[in-house]
């Protein structure tokens, strides 16, 4: 049982990786916590002053630098801070990094990781609330991790680096607030990298989650239990590889399915889960439901913003809806 907050755990994981492997450097500064948690990465700068490269405001440039550094012997972790800024680096993340191993027929590898604070963080408005994960899933050659618990933050960084694949780390700006300490719902899940975790076993309905929706989903599941609905919560953990098998098995068993996803609805992560289930011909008692952010830019104004977020309440309503 890990007694750390999520934010502490991710810094500990990075520090551990840096201690173990001299080749691991940080490009972009120690912005793992974004503006609100500026100091989160400070221990890294302190322990490894020569291995944390603060950069100009030049996302395309410094992500490209990481690609080049990775292919010539380093293992950079790039911090882009708010994920909306990763759009600036799109050509390198979408059209360079993921193609290199394939295009050189396996001769050149790009062992790098890009850390992003994604999500509707409240008051980020349309331009600081990006959830780009589904776009990354459209991009063959990228590995995508999305740890939701302190324990997963601790155990997923190293295998991601070891894989030598260009990896996008989908973090969520609000996870740090959630302070998920090791608790009965998350402990002891020594799930293999690339496999989904059943965070809560249940027999009535399968709830597929990842990242922040895992937190919200587990809360919703507890409330559903009080209403007599026994929810099985499947946390995807990595979006590529995508563990369709665990989802299919669970949904096949419960015969009911809700997918909770902060992406916009159309072509989001949940669309892929839903399509996979449909294609596999899983026999559901009721049609599945996607609980996403609607296809709307994110407003600044608080009531409007709250209206759009796939919250605990909304997930609970969706669970009720498939019963």
């Amino acid at each position, binding site marked *: 049982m890990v007694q750390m907050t999520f934010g502490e755990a991710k810094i500990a994981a990075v520090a551990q990786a840096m201690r173990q492997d001299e080749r691991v450097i940080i490009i972009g500064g120690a912005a793992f916590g974004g503006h609100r948690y500026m100091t989160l990465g400070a221990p890294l700068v302190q322990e490894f002053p020569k291995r944390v490269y603060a*950069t*100009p*405001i030049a996302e395309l440039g410094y992500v490209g630098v990481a690609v080049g550094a990775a292919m010539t012997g380093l293992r950079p972790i790039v911090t882009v801070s708010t994920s909306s800024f990763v759009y600036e680096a799109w050509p390198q993340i979408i059209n360079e990094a993921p193609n290199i191993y394939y295009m050189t027929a396996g001769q050149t590898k790009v062992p790098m990781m890009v850390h992003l604070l994604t999500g509707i963080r409240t008051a980020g408005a349309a331009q600081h609330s990006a959830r780009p994960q589904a776009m990354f899933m459209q991009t063959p050659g990228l590995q995508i991790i999305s740890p939701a618990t302190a324990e997963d933050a601790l155990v997923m960084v190293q295998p991601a680096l070891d894989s030598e694949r260009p990896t996008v780390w989908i973090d969520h700006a609000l996870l740090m607030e959630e302070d998920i300490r090791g608790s009965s719902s998350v402990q002891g899940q020594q799930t293999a990298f690339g496999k989904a975790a059943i965070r809560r076993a249940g027999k009535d309905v399968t709830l597929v989650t990842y990242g922040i929706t895992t937190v919200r989903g587990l809360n919703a599941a507890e409330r559903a239990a009080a209403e007599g609905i026994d929810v099985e919560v499947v946390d995807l953990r990595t979006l590529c590889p995508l563990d369709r098998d665990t989802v299919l098995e669970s949904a096949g068993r419960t015969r009911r399915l809700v997918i909770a996803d902060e992406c916009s609805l159309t072509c989001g992560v949940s669309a892929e889960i839903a399509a996979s289930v449909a294609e596999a011909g899983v026999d559901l008692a009721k049609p599945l439901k996607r609980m996403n952010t609607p296809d709307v830019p994110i407003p*600044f*104004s*608080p009531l*409007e913003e709250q209206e759009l977020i796939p919250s605990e309440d909304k997930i609970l309503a969706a669970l009720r809806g498939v019963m």
Partner: protein
Amino acid sequence: MTPPLPNEQLWEALRRMLLIRRFEETCDAISHEPYFPGHHTHLYIGQEATGAGVAMALEPEDVVFSTHRNHGHTLSRGADPGRALAEILGKATGYCRGRAGTLHGCAPELNMPYNSAIVGGNLPIAVGAALTAKHQGLSRASVMMFGDGVMEEGVFYESINLASLWQLPIILVCENNAWPKEDIQTSQPEGRGSLATKQLVNVAETFGIPAIAVDGADVGSVYDATVAARQRAVSGGGPTFIEARTRGWPGGTGKTDLSWAWGEPPTPWHRRDDAVLRLAAELERSATTSQKQLLELDSRVSQTMSEALQFAMDSPYPPAEEAYANVWP
């Protein structure tokens, strides 16, 4: 320094600058209240003279673009402080009905059609507005107010190259609040001040754009440079680059007492770099203006600001369902 602006205009400049100062101090004061959405604001304290000097040199038909640090730009362009603050609080009475917030503050009705909070996001957009003017033969300028950090983003170079090649009527106002460089920690997490060039104006000149560096805390210099740039723009002379140099406000210095202008400013920054105090001191010394008049102006502005705060606080949020308005099918 001989004021390049006639006295009554300097007075108006001070009014705008004081309004910005009081507005920003209000934002600073309430920014940790639970009803304040978001985690931080980017204040314009110390840069008021740039905003006012540029705005006073422009015409209503000019199109103005800003950045994340926009409060001073909208106010100096004539925005109502109540509606501007309402926007920052996410209220329905804001210039964008609370959709934009502090990061995206703009005022379409004042020809500030949109604001990007992305560093460099508005640069090519402002060039596009200049293209419209040139293509349609309109006598208006596009004005881009931006921070020195923008010059670290590649899009800046793409944008100024287009503006120069096409000789577009644009005024590029770079607000270098990281001046002089030696004052700046270049290893800041966000790398501000991390440009390998010696002088920002050299960059513009390399792209064939006339460039001038002015004291951004001196409203007259800013005004003069902008008048010349606007003249160049509307007469077909193409873009101008103005570097307005200021020293960043250290923050946390509380409410400004205008009487520091002729008294004892609390910090070296206030003495040397505070645009508001400098202009007030100049007016006070000029003998056309008394200390009393200055303090009266300040209390009128402060009164306006209290009313603005009250207005913003009293305004309703747009209801939750309004989230689906203005959504394309």
